[in-house]
């Protein structure tokens, strides 16, 4: 039977010592993958997987990955919301794994939102 063994768990606990405390309470960035029926059907699970890989690769300890429900914009799924503490949240729409990777590199790590994938930037113009 396949099971996580106590040894497996001890190993990751050892390897992650000292890096984990941040993730528990305090974080710098929260990535929410929208996982309503619409999001799941459109491929949200793949987007979650892509971000999980990126968070692990980057070794960052201040990024939280979580899920949320349907935002009522089902035609725009898969969607995520990226919240950088101290900045306005950004909703990204119609994602694929490549777009997700770019958002991670530029917005999550580089603090510069990827405007072209965002739902909207501002709401009105005067010209």
């Amino acid at each position, binding site marked *: *039977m*396949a*099971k*996580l063994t*106590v040894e*497996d*768990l*001890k190993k*990751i*606990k050892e*390897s*992650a*010592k000292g890096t*984990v405390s941040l*993730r*528990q309470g305090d974080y710098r960035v929260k990535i929410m*993958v929208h*996982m*309503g*029926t*619409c999001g*799941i*059907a459109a491929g*949200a*699970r*793949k987007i*979650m*997987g892509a971000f*999980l890989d990126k*968070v*692990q690769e980057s070794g960052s300890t201040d990024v*939280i*990955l*979580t*899920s*949320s*429900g*349907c*935002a*009522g914009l*089902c035609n725009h799924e898969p969607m995520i919301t990226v919240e950088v503490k101290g900045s306005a949240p950004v909703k990204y729409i119609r994602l694929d794994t490549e777009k997700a990777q770019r958002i991670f590199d530029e917005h999550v790590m580089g603090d510069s939102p990827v405007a072209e994938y965002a739902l909207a930037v501002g709401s009105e113009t005067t010209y």
Partner: protein
Amino acid sequence: MEDLSLHILDIVENATAADASLIFIGVVEDLGKDLLRITVKDNGRGMDPDMLEKVRDPFITTRTTRKVGLGLSLLEQSALECGGELVIHSKPGEGTEVTATFQRSHIDRKPMGDMGATLVALIAGNPHVDFLYTSDLEGEEVELDTRVIRVELDGLMSMNDPAVLKMIQELFKKEQ
């Protein structure tokens, strides 16, 4: 939904939305009867008989962001399409149990898909909820109990730590 693991991800989200603290997910096959059975049982707030009667209707939902709720309806459709059925038991205050059965060999029966990715997504999104997953497919048994993992992590790491999630994913890759 492309496969059964996506259906599971979808309907387990109902359980977490019902404030469940423990969710059992079971997948078993009965080769003698040619059946595949998926059970999702939660200890959430449950439904009254009135809601239970209406819950398969796509135009019934508890959500507020839109007026249709397709999760259970789609699962029921997938089960019916291959000679199966969807059975729901629920009691207010006690929880809900959803069982979907499929004729295993039916040509329209969707493949299982990636249960590892489904569990990782569920745990990442609901790190404070406990999940017990057991499957017995093609002679391979898998068991994952987040209560056991939580005790072992001893508060040093949270369930949704990428290192923990990665390990859960690996467990399923070994199986495939």
